[in-house]
């Protein structure tokens, strides 16, 4: 490889691609354990392993190449059905994959990779167990079966769209594409005419079809200006030619890589910058709209509404680019659960639903660790050993479910097990031992308060409830990470029946719907997701319970929290009634008294300086169309404390 190549770039690419290949292998391997006869899975694993070998070879990483090579040998025996991919063989394959993963990681961090000769020996040992070939190998490779014999030439007719401005240019590109896979024999109009840039609406090409002609045609069809494409053998009359359908991105039954849209890898930092710009654009758009609407200038209004529309488009697209499906992390979980369960001698089945739901990359990254922790928890001390389960009338195999679902403006991820549940008495005992509660307090404590204790730093790791796990990361980390994202965690547990952890997460962090309100001389924003409704109460509707203000709405008693009191500023005259927002955080509701309700806006969330992050009642800020700042009200911290 010439020196001027930017090696760092290739290293990065190698690491990401190798990881992706390993992810695919892991997934396929887990499937394969369940269906050892599935040839396609074996092929997939083999292909991925092979591509790791190839990439590592290119990077001169002989250690990785050797291991991949050893693994490939085993896989090829599996493919030839001389080895069955279960038990020891599977274990060995998994081990090799883990070792590859570790090698890739150490290559990423230090460019140094430790050799693992022992593992290669193990792989060789597995190979010796290979039985002689059981079945007669099919004589004919599949490929030939799939493609019927073709006459020597194929005619293609490509119809351009009427608005195609430069058919010649387009035609040149198409011919280039076709000649990559097949040899072009003749064209109509002929190449001279094409070069002269005459106008035409149809291009006919006769080719000697190559192997990947179909793929090339799909690419041609996907080009702009190409409206229809007909295909037939040259000796057939034209009427018999078949129209080739445009393939939708996902509907294609072929797994061929060429059918995938072309992609560009972009660093997350660049997307962050882009999003910042979009944020500015959204603000600028609001200012423009404000100004345009007060002027009597039809043209200006038309332009501003065009800009408005484009801004919304750009915003949705940029946010969309940042979205990745939950599967990206969740696909790692089956393997993890399998390993932990095996380690503990338990039988566990993991069911994952809703993996296709897309969330902002930042959100997905931040919840990976918490979810892994929850899963470990489930296996470690949720699911009982098989004999114990049978005694209590359950299936021997424990069930863990991860269900992700869309809920209005949030995503709900539930991690649940059908294990023994959290024993609240043990929590009580532990709370007393740790002097968090007195004996009496513990006795009277409600389930909700006790469960809350599990999220305290230091509580979970040393209490009996979770000491089995002892992995250092506590539930407090789960809570903290989720809350940093503006989400929340809830626990539901029933002794003997299981535990469910519910994570409420925002789809995206950057742009949210909010209600703008006025308090004293400042504007604040309250996220729509926390608002139930707004309501105006008369002064006589304000009652007190033990000297705390309350109001009633349709029979429900709600605490009345004055934002002015909360902020410690002079209160407002209430004699003419008060404006309130009924807000909700988790299962708590309250009425927030504010000065004015201004209106609904989309806001770009900006984070506050480290020094202000701990301040109660505020979770961030945004910049309004006027350039002024509106702080974002943190309903949870107001209701919680």
């Amino acid at each position, binding site marked *: 490889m010439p020196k001027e190549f930017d090696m760092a770039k290739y290293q990065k690419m190698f690491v990401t691609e190798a990881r992706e290949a390993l992810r695919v292998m892991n997934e396929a391997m887990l499937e394969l354990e369940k269906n050892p006869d599935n040839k396609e899975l074996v092929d997939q694993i083999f292909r991925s392993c092979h591509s790791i070998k190839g990439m590592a070879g290119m990077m001169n990483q002989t250690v990785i190449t050797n291991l991949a090579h050893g693994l490939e040998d085993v896989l090829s025996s599996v493919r030839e059905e001389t080895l069955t991919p279960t038990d020891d063989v599977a274990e060995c394959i998994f081990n090799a994959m883990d070792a590859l993963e570790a090698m890739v990681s150490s290559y990423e961090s230090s460019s140094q990779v430790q050799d693992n000769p022992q593992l290669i020996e193990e792989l060789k040992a597995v190979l010796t167990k290979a039985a002689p070939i059981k079945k007669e190998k099919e004589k004919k490779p599949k490929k030939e079966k799939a493609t019927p014999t073709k006459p020597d030439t194929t005619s293609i007719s490509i119809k351009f769209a009427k608005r195609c401005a430069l058919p010649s240019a387009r035609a040149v590109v198409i011919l280039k594409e076709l000649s990559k896979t097949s040899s072009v024999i003749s064209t109509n109009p002929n190449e001279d005419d094409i070069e002269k840039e005459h106008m035409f609406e149809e291009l006919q090409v006769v080719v000697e079809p190559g192997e990947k002609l179909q793929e090339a045609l799909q690419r041609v069809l996907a080009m702009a200006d190409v409206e229809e494409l007909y295909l037939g053998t040259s000796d057939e009359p034209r009427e018999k030619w078949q129209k080739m359908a445009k393939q939708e991105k996902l509907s294609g039954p072929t797994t061929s890589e060429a059918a995938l849209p072309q992609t560009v890898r972009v660093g997350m930092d660049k997307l962050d910058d882009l999003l910042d710009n979009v944020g500015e654009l959204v603000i600028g758009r609001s200012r423009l709209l404000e100004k345009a609407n007060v002027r009597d200038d039809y043209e200006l209004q038309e332009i501003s509404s065009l800009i408005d529309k484009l801004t919304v488009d750009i915003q949705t697209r940029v946010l969309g680019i940042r979205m990745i499906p939950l599967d990206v992390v969740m696909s790692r979980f089956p393997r993890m659960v399998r390993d932990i369960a095996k380690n503990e001698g338990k039988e566990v089945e993991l069911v994952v639903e809703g993996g296709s739901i897309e969330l902002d990359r930042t959100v997905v990254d931040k919840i990976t660790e918490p979810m892994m922790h929850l899963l470990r928890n489930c296996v470690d001390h949720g699911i009982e050993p098989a004999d114990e389960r049978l005694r209590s009338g359950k299936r021997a195999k424990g069930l863990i479910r991860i269900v992700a679902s869309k809920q209005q403006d949030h995503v709900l991820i539930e991690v649940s097990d059908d294990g023994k549940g959290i024993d609240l008495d043990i929590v009580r005992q532990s709370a007393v031992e740790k002097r968090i509660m007195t004996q009496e307090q513990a006795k009277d404590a409600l389930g909700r308060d006790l469960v809350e204790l599990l999220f305290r730093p230091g509580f979970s790791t040393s209490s009996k409830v979770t000491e089995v796990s002892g992995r250092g990361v506590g539930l407090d980390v789960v809570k903290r990470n989720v809350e940093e994202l503006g989400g929340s965690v809830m626990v539901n547990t029933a002794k003997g029946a299981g535990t469910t952890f519910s994570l409420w997460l925002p789809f995206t962090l950057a742009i949210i719907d909010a209600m703008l309100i006025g308090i004293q001389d400042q504007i604040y924003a309250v996220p729509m997701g926390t608002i139930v409704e707004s309501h105006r109460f008369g002064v006589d509707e304000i009652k007190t319970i033990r000297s705390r203000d309350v109001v009633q709405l349709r029979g429900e008693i709600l605490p009345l929290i004055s934002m002015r009191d909360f*902020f410690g500023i002079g209160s407002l005259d209430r004699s003419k009634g008060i404006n309130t927002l009924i807000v909700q955080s988790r299962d708590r509701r309250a009425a927030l008294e504010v000065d004015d309700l201004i209106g609904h806006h989309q806001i770009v969330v900006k984070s506050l300086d480290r020094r*202000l992050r701990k*301040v109660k009642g*505020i979770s961030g800020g945004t910049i309004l169309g006027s350039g*002024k700042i509106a702080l974002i009200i943190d309903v949870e911290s107001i209701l919680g404390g």
Partner: protein
Amino acid sequence: MTKEGALTLKEDALRQLVVFRLDKEEYGFEVSTVREIHDMEDVAKVHRAASHIEGVVNLRGKLLTVVNLRKRFDMKPDGATNPKIVVVDAPDAPVGFMVDEVVEVVRVPVEAIEKAPAYVASGIEAQYVVGIVKLDDRLITVIDPLKVLELPEESSTQPRR
């Protein structure tokens, strides 16, 4: 760049200082720590924040936290008619310091920066006071803004409450 009271370490013969006024006293930041000077307008108050935090302002689309230096130094909190914000590059994000007035940028020889007398810069003050510059009949206290930021949240030079 200027982690350790850079003024005492550099070899150059001249120092540039951004000189600003708090009440009747003059102070200086080394120019390399200062990113820009900003007008004090549209400050959003952050209630329940530490008392020396004046609020946040919009610095080209980002939220800039503004520290009220008078309050931080336990001086009479108001009295400035047209305060300015000196924006300083702190390690994680820029921070603004609200001052009464930005007077000038001066060049002084390194030797002109003298050690502060012990009774002025004792205890916690010694952490951020770099030295004193005598300029004609003026006295400029040179301080390290990053060290000021490291002061404990609520406690100040002389705890009062």
